[in-house]
């Protein structure tokens, strides 16, 4: 019985030490998630800087991805995160329309919308019903 119990504890502690060390090494050596953190920071601080004063403080804003992010879903989520508590919906017919595009791309001009602000980084804000 002594050998069995001792073996059990040795097995458990050895496996635990290996798993813990393996994870530590893996976390430190892994392809850093820093890219994700940088992307969140970029959307949070830089990409939409200058829009906060123009956009209404809350309410619904239309959102259109036009190649602004290599992962459109991610771009949409991060835009929502940056601009909360405004609600961003993927609907180009809204009075306010935010286009997340690329700076080298020819600007997309939605029907009946006028350009309010072009941030120069591919982000353009349009508004309908205003001359």
């Amino acid at each position, binding site marked *: 019985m002594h050998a069995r119990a001792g073996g059990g504890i040795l097995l458990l502690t050895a496996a635990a030490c290996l798993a813990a060390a393996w994870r530590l090494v893996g976390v430190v050596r892994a392809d850093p998630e*820093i890219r994700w953190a940088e992307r969140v920071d970029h959307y949070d601080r830089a990409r939409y800087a200058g829009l906060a004063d123009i956009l209404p403080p809350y309410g619904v804003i239309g959102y259109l991805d036009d190649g602004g992010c290599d992962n459109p879903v991610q771009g949409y989520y991060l835009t929502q995160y940056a601009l909360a508590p405004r609600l961003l919906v993927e609907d180009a017919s809204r009075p306010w329309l935010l286009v997340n595009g690329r700076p080298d791309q020819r600007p997309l001009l939605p029907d009946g919308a006028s350009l309010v602000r072009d941030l120069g980084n591919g982000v353009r804000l349009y508004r309908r019903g205003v001359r």
Partner: protein
Amino acid sequence: MTAAVLALVPPVLAGYLLACWAWPARPGPRGVLLRLALAVGLGLGMSSLTYFLWAVAAGPRQPGLLLAEGLLFGTLSLAFFCAGREEGESPLPASRHERLTPPVRGACFVVLACAAASCAWQFVHDPHGDWDASAIWNLRARFLYRGGDPGTDVFSPLIPWSHPDYPLLVPASVARGWVCAGHETTAVPRLIAALFLAATAALLMAALTLLRGSAQGGLGGLALLATPSFLEQGTAQYADVPLAFFFLAGAAAFEALDRGAAAPRRLAALAGLLAALAAWTKNEGLLFLVATVGVRGLRALRLRPGWKPLLAETAAFTAGALPALAVLAYFKLRLAPANDLLAGQGREATLARLADLDRYRIIAGAFLGQIFLIGPGAVVVLAAYAFLLGRAPRVKGRWQAHSGTLLAAMLAGYFVVYLTTPNDLPSHLGTSLDRLLVQLWPLALLAFFLTVATPGETWGEPAQTGRRGPRQALLSPAAPKTPG
């Protein structure tokens, strides 16, 4: 940031005194560790409730929150302090004084150090957490803090991918921290994530130490801290580890009650509060609440304790759960949109899903595969450990299966949720099952180390012999203590 930390003191102090009032334990490090761990969860849970009510009633950044909270938690602290604490302790087996020898304790410290270092690395290098932190939990915190209209914006169904029906313990705690800090900072969600990670590990160790002895407590903590997925979900700033904390705490309270702890009604009330806070953390917590009630009903059927103790326990559990459940009911009934999983049900569609045998096969396969991936391979190691150590001696006429039965009920509940999900099944499994199992992992370890024999029990030697023998290679007896 200092202000955010200081603002946690009143609710955590109230949580500590509540834990002292409810959970009997003799003074000493293990009792302090247990109560500190409980205090973190209770403090964060209670302050998230008060912040949510304040935000809805007065506005998210109205001055006076801290004053109102100070009064409330001060009164609560005074009430629990005056009500006194239970100094008795549940009757514990002889193994309570088993101590792991320095080499095994050294291994525990290695695991603890590796876990702390890897978590610290992730908190520093990934301050925003993982994907869902920005898409769900911290996004909702921003809505609360930045002051969207709760009636239209904060819980709007227009962005269903952000799951606006999810309960608010984590987002409200983060928003409250920002209010106290005076600005948005990633330090607050990181602090909350770190507190729940540490509290869950500490609670598992302390609860096992109190219920089954120091050796079992150390080994349980070792197993949890060596589980990569648990640490990953914790540092991701999701709500799954906070939920795991409340699952564990609620189950441990009933385990103490079932093992003859003093003040069973207070423990039942504490278990009720913890189960309700689980429901306030994530929707899965509602399932936990129902499963807990079901398991207690099963215990009553098995043991037939009589109506009086059963009613007393049920009344205390309900009283403990009521405050948090009332806030949750207000949120769910007045503010939150319908849950996507429930809204997608219909008589014919649900019956068709239930009758589809392929779905059972897919879900069972995914469960088995994902369970094996915890660790990975942790279940294999634990199975071998259980085979070598054997089963703990059973006490006749005592219900010692609360955690295990609860775990089985939760797994069955999750199985049914997947069975009836209106979403694409493989995708739903692929994006959520790993997190659901992490929620249950600390509870599973509690059940496991309560069920498996302690090293001393396997050796068949009394723990208080003080003799030097072969067991000294891994265990050493502590100085004898006088119980009670």
